[in-house]
């Protein structure tokens, strides 16, 4: 039975008038400002406040046009809720005043003179255009707005690509297209990324991991570089203002308040092109800093609930950024859960990478928990049921959990050990071979039983050197950051190939390019989930700066001229990514078993050295080779070519004895980083037959990859 004209609801009508506006007691859930029939429903939590006032502004106005105290009967438990009717929600901004004890030692910092941003704001005004000087005379800086969240997704939803099949590309929204060479209509925006989707597809990546896109304040702790006169910003954005709102300054339509639609259009378009979207999320601290920081939202709403506090009422600082979000308080846990559910359901986000995730496993006094409720909740949540969850499994308080992060069968980790070992091996350090073999198999020593995809393998990420700088600098050069080169990591495991920084020496340039190819090749033949840092495929340099968090300039921007200047490296990157996609043998779901369990005559993986079947695990070895049996690909569920990889990080060429293949299959050359382009990588199906099937010379600091078919 159907009924085209549904009966109107009684609660679509107001019951009383406050401050000249028609209102009624609101719905306590969901938190935030929600469009309901006839009006906007406002719901906000505070456990320790004694009263609450809803403050309404016309968009951009300094003074509010109405202040509506919540009548006592509009509060249910610790939630104040009110529906206000007949608002032009498109031109509306709102906030709250909270009254309550102002006793820092007891953990309370209520101040009713301050208008507070709603922590559940789905849209935030005040930083609508990137870098535009805010009106500092405005008392209310980050302004809650109401979002009409009715985007038309058509058939879209998260792609659910098996994690082991991903090739992740870590990028910064603004950096990707801000450079003058980008040739896009609105540089530095979500919309501009859409124009570059063909490039992303040509590279072959199938997941972009976006550095923080939640609303942040680029002016937080900004300063002027005395040498260049340029502003140093909170550029990367690892300091959240609002967890539910996309950064307006990243949208070409931010000035129109349409950042949510613009970002959704980007996600939809990426999905249409087979590319997942992962967000880098920062739940360990907020932009409010310590007791000297600004009061934006949480501090004034309920300081004691939202932050980890010392017994004396000071802020614990496990994040290195002034405060620590109290993630295992049950209320805050719900904020995090609501937030992630919202981004998955409303923005179709495919996965999250949690910044300093070890903090999420600490209790309200900072002690690491054996069974952290937040991590368990996220791992078992129905809406996040197919969402990728990736932890940066350490924090600034010294908790290092790579390999031991509480995983509940769901969590993956940024594998810091992969980065460290492979970097050491690449630069020719001895004693790395046994460890390298573990990293190549998806680090079973760390993740056995959790699957290979628990290991996100990377050599470079936004923190630290770019790939080009990894082979061009022995030491960091962070002077431009204004901290006397004291910031940024010192343990880079980098090697400059004989000269610090830029050079015209063609031998050094050639060696560096080969080293970059070696790095990309190792990454792509490793079991687990490879992640590339944006720009590494074209040799992006930060001139030795390994901590470019504050630079809105060429130190961070992707230089599109390099696509042509470094076409050789880009071609290799495309080929090696395509090679990974073409070969399921590189993408096992479970770890290796070192035996033949399909009756192919070869074990799933076998290890070799310059002599077949005789790997050199000794402390002086710089050589390793391995053979992946194609009949065991993806646990024996599909048939692939056999793959043999010979890795020589010794400086001279070495002859490798190649293991013989059963069944008359022959070895063909897929990749040889020691050969000049385009013979360094052959497209799938065009690999030339190896002349001598028994032995092959592998150049100094080179990698040879053969396929057997």
């Amino acid at each position, binding site marked *: 039975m159907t009924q085209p004209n549904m009966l109107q609801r009684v609660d679509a009508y107001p019951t009383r008038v406050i401050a000249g506006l028609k209102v009624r007691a609101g719905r306590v859930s969901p938190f935030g400002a929600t469009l309901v029939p006839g009006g906007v429903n406002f719901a906000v939590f505070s456990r320790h406040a004694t009263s609450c006032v809803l403050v309404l502004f016309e968009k951009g106005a300094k003074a509010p046009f109405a202040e509506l105290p919540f009548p006592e009967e509009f509060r249910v438990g610790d939630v104040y809720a009110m529906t206000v009717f007949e608002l032009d929600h498109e031109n509306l901004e709102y906030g709250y005043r909270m009254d309550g004890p102002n006793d820092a030692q007891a953990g309370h910092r209520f101040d009713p003179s301050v208008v507070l941003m709603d922590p559940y704001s789905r849209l935030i005004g005040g930083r609508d255009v990137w870098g535009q000087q805010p009106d500092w005379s405005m008392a209310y800086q980050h302004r809650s707005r109401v979002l009409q969240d009715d985007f038309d997704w058509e058939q879209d939803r998260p792609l659910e690509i098996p994690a082991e099949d991903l090739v992740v590309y870590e990028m910064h929204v603004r950096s990707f297209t801000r450079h003058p060479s980008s040739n896009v*209509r609105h540089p530095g925006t*979500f*919309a501009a990324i859409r124009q570059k989707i063909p490039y992303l597809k040509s590279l072959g990546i199938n997941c972009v991991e976006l550095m923080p896109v939640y609303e942040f304040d680029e002016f937080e702790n900004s300063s002027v570089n005395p040498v260049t006169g340029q502003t140093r910003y909170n550029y990367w954005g690892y300091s959240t203002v609002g967890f539910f709102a996309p950064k307006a300054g990243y949208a070409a*339509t931010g000035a129109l308040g*349409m950042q949510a*639609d613009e970002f*959704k*259009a980007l996600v*939809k378009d990426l999905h249409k092109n087979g590319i997942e979207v992962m967000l880098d999320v920062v739940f360990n601290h907020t932009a409010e800093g310590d007791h000297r920081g600004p009061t934006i939202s949480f501090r004034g709403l309920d300081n004691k609930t939202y932050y980890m506090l010392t017994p004396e009422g000071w802020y614990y600082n496990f994040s290195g950024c002034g405060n620590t979000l109290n993630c295992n308080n049950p209320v805050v846990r719900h904020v995090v859960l609501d937030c992630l559910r919202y981004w998955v359901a409303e923005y179709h986000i495919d996965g999250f990478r949690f910044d300093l995730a070890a903090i999420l496993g600490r209790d309200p006094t900072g002690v690491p928990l054996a069974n952290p409720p937040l991590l368990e909740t996220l791992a078992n949540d129905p809406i996040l049921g197919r969402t990728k969850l990736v932890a940066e499994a350490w924090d600034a308080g010294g908790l290092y959990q790579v390999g031991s992060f509480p995983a509940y069968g769901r969590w993956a980790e940024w594998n810091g050990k992969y980065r460290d070992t492979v970097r050491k091996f690449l630069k020719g350090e001895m004693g790395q071979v046994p460890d390298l073999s573990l990293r190549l198999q998806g680090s079973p020593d760390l993740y056995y039983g959790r699957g290979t995809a628990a290991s996100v393998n990377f050599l470079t990420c936004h923190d630290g050197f770019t790939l080009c700088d990894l082979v061009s600098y022995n030491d960091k050069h962070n002077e431009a950051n204004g901290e006397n080169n004291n910031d940024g990591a010192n343990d880079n495991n980098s090697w400059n190939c004989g000269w610090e920084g830029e050079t015209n020496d063609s031998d050094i340039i050639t060696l560096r390019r080969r080293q970059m190819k070696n790095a990309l090749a190792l990454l792509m033949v490793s079991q687990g989930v490879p992640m590339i840092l944006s720009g590494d495929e074209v040799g992006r340099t930060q001139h030795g700066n390994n901590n470019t968090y504050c630079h809105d300039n060429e130190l961070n921007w992707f230089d599109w001229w390099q696509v042509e200047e470094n076409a050789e490296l880009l071609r290799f990157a495309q080929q090696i990514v395509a090679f990974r996609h073409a070969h399921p043998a590189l993408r096992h779901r479970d770890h290796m078993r070192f035996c033949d369990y399909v009756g192919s005559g070869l074990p799933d993986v076998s290890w070799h050295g310059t002599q077949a079947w005789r790997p050199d695990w000794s402390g002086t070895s710089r050589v390793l080779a391995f053979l992946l049996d194609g009949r065991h690909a993806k646990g024996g569920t599909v048939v692939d070519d056999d793959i043999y990889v010979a890795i020589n990080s010794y400086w001279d060429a070495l002859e490798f004895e190649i293991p013989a293949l059963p069944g008359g299959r022959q070895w063909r050359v897929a990749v040889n980083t020691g050969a000049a382009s385009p013979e360094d990588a052959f497209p799938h199906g065009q690999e030339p037959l190896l002349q001598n099937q028994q032995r092959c010379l592998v150049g100094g600091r080179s990698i040879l990859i053969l396929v057997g078919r």
Partner: protein
Amino acid sequence: MCLISLFEAPMSTSLTIALRNEVLTATIAGNIDGQTAPALQAQLLDALSPVTAAVFEVSQVPYMSSAGFRMLLLAYRSLAIRNGRLALAGLSEEIRDTMAMTGFLDFFLLCNSLDEALEQVRNDSTQHAATR
């Protein structure tokens, strides 16, 4: 051709609705934003209910906010569920750019002139809208 209604919204936005050979033509002039969109929407949805093809002539719309785009998309949806078609004629370059960036543009047939739009919605009876 018969004139169905003439409507005056706040902020001097105007709507003229006409029916030509079973195609509804709505000529809108003035800004479409949170102030004007709700009344326009009510009028348009009413007018669209008996037809399966429509053209919105918007060359005299200098500005459209998010509410305007949503009004257009809702009109499209109300037609699409009946396998109908909606064309926009005379959309300004700036509005078109914003609609493209925010994902609204793909739903509509875009035409430079009213005549071209009328031609399009008549001929395009099988593709585009019906497939969504």
